[in-house]
């Protein structure tokens, strides 16, 4: 399941949808908006996406993770629009019979999402506005 949305992420509902009775493990990653970047104070963020392609890329990502790892189900959710400090911007939730493939799949899914899904972050600092350069490894 992949979702692009402007509404807050409902983690509890994702857990419910991903976990089945055959799953002994659910692993999740949540990314949050933090109040600083490279020593500058951040007021809030905006996420802008190439919506049609971002959704297609998230779907391709979920499909390949499901093929490559022994997991049961995967949910990937990304928010768009204005987000405040402390808001969850992205969530990956993965279920599997055993914990190890779920941990590995979760890390890989996030790493690939950050490389391939066409979404951009715009940071509103106390002293300016900048698009985040995705080449920075942070």
């Amino acid at each position, binding site marked *: 399941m992949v979702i692009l949305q402007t509404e807050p992420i409902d983690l509890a509902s994702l857990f419910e949808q991903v976990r089945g009775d055959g799953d002994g493990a659910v692993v999740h990653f949540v990314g949050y908006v933090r109040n600083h970047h490279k020593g500058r104070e951040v007021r809030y963020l905006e996420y802008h996406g190439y919506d049609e392609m971002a959704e297609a890329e998230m779907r391709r990502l979920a499909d390949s993770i499901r093929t490559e790892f022994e997991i049961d189900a995967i949910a990937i959710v*990304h928010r768009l629009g204005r987000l405040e400090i402390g808001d969850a911007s992205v969530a990956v939730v993965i279920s599997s019979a055993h914990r190890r493939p779920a941990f590995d799949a979760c890390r890989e899914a996030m790493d690939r999402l950050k490389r391939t899904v066409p979404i951009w972050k715009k940071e509103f600092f106390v002293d300016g506005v900048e698009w985040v*350069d995705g080449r920075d490894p942070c």
Partner: protein
Amino acid sequence: MTVEVRLFAVLTDHTGWSRQSMDAPAGRTVEQLWQQLVQAHPGLGSLGYRPMVACDCRYSDWDSVLDDVQEVAFLPPVSGG
């Protein structure tokens, strides 16, 4: 023939627009279209990198021919997450 051109994030700061229809005569490649954009908006030529390219919502190559493409997008390094 026309193709829909989409620009994102920092690229739009250099053009003032994010979406435009452009003429694409038969055989026109992504690379040639980009050169046309750089001529009109020189800021695109001094990004310090080449954006990624997508044709009809799939990552694509600079030498792709646009004949059967409805929409071409130029994507600066993504920064979601």
